[in-house]
C-alpha cells in the first residue's frame, strides 16, 4: 500500500497529539515534568513474511522487553503494543513511584506491583493514541485493558510474526522524565482491512484539505 507524505503527516500529527496527551496525563499523576520527542512513524506491510522487523525496531529495544498490549476491534481490528526495554522500564517505574535506583537487589525483578504500574502506563499511552485516532478519524473502537508480558527480543519478533495482522505502524517514542531519557516504541498491529479502512478515512481528510 502506497502511503503518501500527506497521509503520513496526518498520522504523525494524530499520534503526536495522542502521545502529548498521554505525557500530560502522566505528568499530572506522578507530579513530574515529562517532555517527549515528537514520534516518527513508519508503516510496514508484511508480504509473505518477507518483512524483517529487526531492521525497523530501534536498537535500544534489545534483551528483555516489557510489552503492554491492548486489543481493539470494531472499525479497526488489531493490537497496540507499548514496548520498553526492561532496564528503561525499571527506571520509568522508579521515577513514577519516586523510588531511587540504589537497591540493586530488586533492580530487574519485576513484582506484581510493578506490573500494575506498567499496565497503567500502557493504558494511558495506548488509550490516548488510539483515542486520538478514533476521535479524529471518527472510528469507533472497542478495546481491552492492557495485558503486560515480558519477552525476550527474539521471542517478541516471533510473536509479532505469528500475528495474523498484516500491517504494522511503528512509532518511536522518547519520554524525558525529570531529565532522564526513556526510549521505547509503540507497535500498532492492524489487519489489512483495518489499514485500508484507516487510509479511507485519511483520504477523506486529504480530500477535505484539498477542497
Amino acid at each position, binding site marked *: 500500500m502506497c502511503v503518501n507524505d500527506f497521509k503520513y503527516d496526518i498520522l504523525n500529527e494524530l499520534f503526536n497529539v495522542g502521545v502529548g496527551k498521554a505525557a500530560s*496525563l502522566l505528568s*499530572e*499523576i*506522578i507530579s513530574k515534568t515529562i517532555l517527549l520527542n515528537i514520534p516518527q512513524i513508519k508503516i510496514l506491510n508484511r508480504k509473505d513474511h518477507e518483512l524483517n522487523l529487526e531492521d525497523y525496531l530501534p536498537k535500544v529495544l534489545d534483551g528483555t522487553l516489557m510489552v503492554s498490549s491492548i486489543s481493539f476491534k470494531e472499525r479497526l481490528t488489531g493490537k497496540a503494543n507499548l514496548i520498553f526495554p526492561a532496564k528503561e522500564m525499571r527506571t520509568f517505574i522508579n521515577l*513514577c*513511584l519516586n523510588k531511587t535506583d540504589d537497591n*540493586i*537487589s*530488586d533492580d530487574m*525483578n519485576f*513484582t*506484581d*506491583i*510493578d506490573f*500494575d*504500574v506498567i*499496565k*497503567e502506563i500502557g*493504558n494511558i499511552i495506548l*488509550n490516548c493514541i488510539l*483515542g486520538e485516532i*478514533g*476521535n479524529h478519524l471518527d472510528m*469507533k*473502537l*472497542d*478495546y*481491552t*485493558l*492492557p495485558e503486560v508480558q515480558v519477552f525476550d527480543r527474539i521471542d517478541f519478533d516471533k510473536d509479532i510474526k505469528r500475528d495474523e495482522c498484516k500491517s504494522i505502524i511503528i512509532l518511536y517514542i522518547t519520554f524525558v522524565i525529570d531529565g532522564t531519557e526513556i526510549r521505547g516504541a509503540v507497535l500498532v498491529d492492524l489487519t489489512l482491512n483495518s489499514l485500508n479502512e484507516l487510509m479511507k478515512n485519511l483520504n477523506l481528510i486529504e480530500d477535505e484539505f484539498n477542497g
Partner: protein
Amino acid sequence: MDEVLQDVLLNIDHGIIILNQNLHIIVWNKYMQRIMGISSENAVNCNVYQVLPNLNKNYFRAAIESAFTNGCKMFFSDAMHRDLISEKEHFNLKLSRIDIDKSKYILFEFISVTNEYMRVHLLRSNMNQLCLLNKGLKDKQKEIKKIAYYDELTGVANRTLFYELAEKLLFDAKRNHYLLGLMFIDVNQFKNINDTYGHEIGDILLTKVAEVLKNSTRNNDVVARYGGDEFLVLLPHMQNFENYKVIASKIANAPNRFIRFGGHEIEISLSIGFSFYPHNGKMIHQLIDAADKAMYTAKKAQKVCHCAFCESVDNKRIHQEQ
C-alpha cells in the same frame, strides 16, 4: 434473573460502584460498605466526588468523561495512586462503561491487592536478607582466599600464591620473550635481633621488611614471604639486567627502613640475590636456587644491602654492589 444479578453484584468480593451520567452513585455494594464504613443508604444517590473525595482530581474526572464519551476502559494502580479509598488496604481501580438501552453508566471495580503488597514486602525482605547473606559469604570467601594465599603476619603473598603467580609469569615471559627477574631476600642478623629484643620485635621487623619491599617495587611485581626471614620478589617485564640496581638502591635507601622502640633503633639490613629468566634457568626452582646462591654471596660481604648478580649473566663473574 435481574434480582440474582443484583444480588451477585452486591455480594461480590470486589468493591463495586455504578454511576449514572449525573455522576450519582446508583450501586454501592457490601464490599464498599465494609472498606469505606459508609452504608449504602448514605452513598446511593450522592455525587461520587462527595463520597470519595480523593477521586476528585483532574485525571480521574477526565478518565470518567472519556469513559462516558469513548467507552475507554481505564486502569489505575494502587502504586501510583496511594490511599485512593483506604489508608490501610491497597486497591487497583478498573473503570469501564456499561451501555444499557440508551443509557450509559460507569462501573468502578476496586480490586484488593493488599495480599500482593504483603507478598512483595515479604519477598523484598527475604531478598534483602539473601543479599546480605550472599555478601557475607563473599566476604568470607575473600577471607578464606586471603588466609590461603597471603602471609598472616606481613600481608604479602605466601608460598602458594607465589608459585601460582610465578608459573603464570614464567609462562608469559616464555611466550612473549621478556626478561623475568627474581629477588631472593634474607634479613641479616635476624636470629640475633629475635634473641636480643624478643619475637615481638622480630615480627615487627619482618612486617617492616615486607613494607619496604612493597614500597620499593612496582605494582605488578610480586612480593612474597618464602618462609622465616626469607622473601621472594618476582619482577616481570624487566627492560634490562641493569634495572636491578635501581630496585636495590630503592630498598637500601628506603626512608622507612628503621624501627624504633624503647630508645633503640634498628636499621633493616638485607642481603639480596638476583636471578633472571632465561639466563639463570627455565624453571622457577632453578631461578630460586640461582638467586639464593647470589644472596649468600652478597651476605658474605656483610654490607647493609647487597645484590649479587649471577655469573652466567654477568660475563662469568660475580658482581657485588652496595
